[in-house]
């Protein structure tokens, strides 16, 4: 494997030195481009109290192309599908090489606080979120309790 670019080394160091509150991202022991991520559910959201596992991979041409991020923990959210894929503009066409792992994870955390059912990825979830928000929020809380709170 090619040598790790300075950008990735520095970014990892800074992430370790000044961690973001509520987010941990640890590189895999065997692959420095693969990160084990844990995001805590933001306060005053249906995901509060949950610990959500994600995986993050820095592709070959990072930072020219966006990192690949996916939820591993099941989550009831209109912009995250059954496979944990996330609908977030900065992971797609709005990616900028000036963004970082840190900013990406902060945006994902913000997405948990502010679901956007008008730009859905999980259609049934988004539908319910629009028709009956309180039931959708109840579902999200239930899923958080069931999948993001054990151990």
């Amino acid at each position: 494997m090619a040598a790790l670019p300075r950008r990735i080394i520095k970014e990892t160091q800074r992430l370790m030195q000044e961690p973001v509150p509520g987010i941990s991202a640890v590189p895999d022991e065997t692959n420095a481009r693969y990160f084990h991520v844990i995001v805590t559910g933001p306060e005053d959201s249906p995901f509060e109290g949950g610990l959500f596992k994600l995986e993050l991979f820095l592709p070959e041409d990072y930072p020219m192309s966006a990192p690949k991020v996916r939820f591993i923990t099941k989550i009831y959210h209109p912009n995250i599908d059954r496979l944990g894929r996330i609908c977030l503009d900065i992971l797609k066409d709005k990616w900028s090489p000036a963004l970082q792992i840190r900013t990406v994870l902060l945006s994902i955390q913000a997405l948990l606080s502010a679901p956007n059912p008008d730009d859905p990825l999980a259609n049934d979830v988004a539908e319910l979120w629009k028709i009956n928000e309180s039931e959708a929020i109840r579902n999200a809380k239930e899923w958080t309790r069931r999948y993001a709170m054990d151990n």
Partner: protein
Amino acid sequence: MDSEEETLYDDIDSGNESSGDDVDFAMDVESSNPIERTADTDEYPFEVLSTEEIVQHMVDCIKDVNTVVEIPATTTRILLNHFKWDKEKLMERFYDGDQEKLFTEAHVINPFTKTSALIKNRPQIKTNATEECGVCFMALPASMMTGLECGHRFCTSCWGEYLTTKIMEEGVGQTIACAAHACDILVDDANVMRLIKDSKVKLKYQHLITNSFVECNRLLRWCPSPDCNNAIKVQYVESKPVTCKCNHTFCFNCGENWHDPVKCRLLRKWIKKCDDDSETSNWIAANTKECPKCNVTIEKDGGCNHMICKNSCKTEFCWVCLGPWEPHGSSWYNCNRYDEADAKVARDAQEKSRAALQRYLFYCNRYMNHMQSLKFENKLYSSVKEKMEEMQQHNMSWIEVQFLKKAVDILCLCRQTLMYTYVFAYYLQKNNQSVIFEDNQRDLESATECLSEYLERDITSENLADIKQKVQDKYRYCDSRRKVLLEHVHEGYEKDWWDYLE
């Protein structure tokens, strides 16, 4: 400003210039194109532009605007692109509207206020200090950092890599935004050319820029012929034939082969329909048939529609209707008309849909048949060319043998017209005028097949005098019938005769 344009366009690809001259069937360089010769209808002025001329045209458009509006040429290009290269629209907005809003919409910094923006966004830079590039995280001297008027600075090598990714991986040219997050200010040509070192990337960028210039300019259209890099420029958009320097003739409005008498809209509908229906059944219907007597499968690879089965049964039949050939030689020729009365026999819904399919296949079959034959006429061109050369070696003058080429030209034109008459006819509702149209179609078709048969025959210097007269009479007849048919359809468009089945 001029020097900026030169850096952008001076090493532009010269394109495949050779492709026009060595087309296989071009018989003589001086012989005129068949379409041009018959372009006797109203004038439709157009110009053929090479890659260099397209770039020049683009530069001229920018200069035109810049003589009035004094802003950097690269900014003008972004603005013009925003207005789809409509100069008048740009001028109107520039002088009548809110300029600040205009620049924001086009994603450029207002050049009249940019100095203040620059100072505002980077006050802390001193010449000897180092800055950290937000992409590679290297601490670098300020001289290695650069940015657009928005003030977001990155190192030159990260800029180069960023632009390269956008151009080569994502194929973006016109609309590369600043590398900073959430900044939509567009990178201009001068900066792209300055920051990219690889000439391959520069070339791709130039292609992307010229391509979007042509694509979004209503008065320009790329020649659709493969490997041709020319574009056609017109003064107003209309459904008219234009002929590129590569000899390809197409409709300016829709880009398809010139398709008179059918209109662009119906042709598009037809093509979509042909694509929707099963390719395989279309192919089998268009390319193979069974001998009506011995049922052997036949693939037609050239020649006229007069078939003689080689599978020892020697049946003579018509390739189109599979009926016996005999009546086709006389006035009984009647295989171009689909009998609506027969279709009405269909009783239940299933039979109706079957009839619809059959009706479609009837027209599709004849359409495809002419299309196939048209492709084979390229072979005919080369065999006729050989014959003409041979005759010239047998004491015949160049001028005496030209009728052969002329005959093939007319044959091709007739086939092309006939091909599209079937698309027209497919959507046409029956009325008195449609009967006249079908008569014209039948007449042209039988004459065309006759001409095709003459040309397939052995033409030697011995029987030349005899056949020359026949061929000339026939092609003159075909040519005049073709014009009659087209004029009748055009008259119908003017007088609103045609009703469509849609």
